[in-house]
């Protein structure tokens, strides 16, 4: 007998006539299924409230510093790959669809479909993280790091720091390997239950690397189009730096003037020059504080660093939520493979669904706020 059949215990539908005969899925302190469902759901909504307020702190920081230095945000946003962001948005929206579908499947006792939908959600989450890994590693390589770690030279070539992607991918690789081992075990033992759990997990693990591949392909494309003579964000950034030169103080103008006359007038070079002028020999030179000049050069740790702090905090905390969601979805897959859900007991699917949609909800705002600043 397979495990799945063992767990197919007949589901008692509580008619609430017998208070003391609680079915196994109904906790002892609840009177009936609806009370349990309502409690769980209200609890989850309240938890989502805390999530909203938790993220609001970072949105507040974002709004504050964007309002203070809009030019920094414009400049820095041009380093974010819009295509990757858009693809990730689509992936998350699709995972929301499959999650909502999973709730429907649970309510209608479509057990196979439920496992499939949850697996699809898990896979989408993995793709999202894979793309994110490429984004992060690419930015770290050229020194677009948060706060005081910001070291971007913006000289057009990748910085000296390599190996971030490999580092980030270590843990997913180990997880995928474990999933694969589990899948081999499941197929070897011919346990239908284990197969239903291991299948989606392995697919999700592979999806992560699919996401990495996709991300790298798109990043390479972006790079190529950049090499073909200024395109997209970097071109705008060029124009912007020029604008600053016109309005800037004399030193700034002088520093950038030399950049202007250089043979290659790419924006990144100019920015690099400016960067050296401002902080090139920081060990001996400590500039006195000066009053805020609105058109101060933006490619410095003191300005761009703050944007990337906010970028990493927001997307990082969001990614942590994705990882948390993947863990609970895996738990759901186990329960779904045991065919535990039915129209009286689908609260866990519904509540994890609510959580998952909230993660999507946050991303819906993060995407335009971070990637689409023009």
């Amino acid at each position: 007998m397979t495990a799945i059949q063992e767990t197919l215990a007949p589901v008692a539908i509580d008619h609430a006539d017998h208070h003391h005969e609680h079915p196994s899925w109904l906790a002892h302190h609840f009177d009936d299924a609806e009370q349990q469902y309502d409690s769980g759901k209200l609890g989850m909504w309240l938890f989502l409230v805390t999530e909203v307020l938790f993220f609001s702190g970072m949105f507040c920081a974002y709004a504050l510093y964007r309002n203070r230095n809009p030019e920094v945000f414009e400049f820095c946003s041009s380093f974010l790959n819009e295509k990757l962001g858009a693809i990730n948005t689509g992936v998350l929206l699709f995972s929301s669809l499959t999650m909502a579908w999973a709730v429907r499947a649970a309510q209608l006792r479509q057990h196979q479909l439920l496992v499939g939908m949850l697996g699809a959600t898990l896979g989408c989450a993995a793709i999202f993280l894979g793309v994110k890994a490429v984004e992060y590693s690419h930015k770290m390589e050229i020194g677009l790091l948060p706060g005081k770690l910001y070291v971007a030279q913006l000289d057009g070539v990748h910085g000296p720091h390599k190996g971030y992607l490999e580092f980030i991918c270590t843990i997913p690789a180990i997880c995928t390997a474990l999933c694969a081992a589990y899948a081999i075990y499941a197929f070897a033992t011919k346990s239908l239950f284990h197969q239903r759990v291991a299948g989606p997990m392995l697919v999700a693990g592979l999806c992560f690397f699919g996401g990495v591949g996709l991300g790298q392909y798109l990043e390479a494309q972006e790079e190529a189009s950049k090499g073909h003579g200024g395109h997209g964000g970097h071109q705008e950034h060029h124009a912007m730096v020029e604008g600053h030169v016109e309005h800037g103080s004399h030193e700034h103008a002088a520093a950038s003037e030399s950049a202007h006359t250089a043979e290659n007038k790419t924006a990144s070079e100019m920015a690099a020059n400016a960067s050296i002028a401002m902080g090139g020999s920081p060990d001996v030179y400590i500039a006195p504080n000066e009053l805020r000049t609105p058109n101060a050069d933006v490619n410095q740790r003191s300005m761009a660093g703050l944007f990337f702090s906010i970028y990493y905090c927001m997307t990082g905390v969001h990614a942590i939520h994705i990882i948390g969601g993947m863990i609970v979805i895996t738990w759901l897959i186990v329960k779904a493979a045991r065919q535990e859900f039915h129209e009286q007991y689908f609260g866990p699917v519904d509540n994890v669904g609510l959580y998952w949609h909230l993660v999507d909800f946050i991303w819906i705002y993060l995407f335009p706020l971070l990637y689409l600043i023009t």
Partner: protein
Amino acid sequence: MAHTTTSDHNHEAHANHGHHDSQHGGHHDHGFSHPMPIWMLLSVFFALLFLTVLTVFQSQFDLGNAEIFASLTIATIKAALVILFFMHLLWDKPLNAIVILGSLIFVALFLGFTLMDAEGYRENLIYNSTIEASQPVDPAAQTAMAPGVPAAVAP
């Protein structure tokens, strides 16, 4: 509205079904579960995709200050679709809707006051043009970074 067509589960009856004053007896077969029709799930999803494309398209144009409003409006429509349909808030108990919408009031309060204040003292700020790179890097920061990265201070 679309949701009125999902009447196979008689939502109105359930919406008023407060359980505190009822004896919880005699559930319907489907009880409190309201499966969403597939066509609705799919149309919401495609609407969301369309809006995503729209917001990317919109960002190509320089709308100046209106840009942020345009993108936030689109994002809010998307968020509303997710909340109302995917999260079933349209059919949920009113309390849950109050809970989540109420939280937005507090977010508005928090952001509103903090930003209003930050704007108010903006002219007093001193722009710190160069960060003192002579500051030693926190050893904790180094260990927190990925391997193979030299002490990332010198530009």
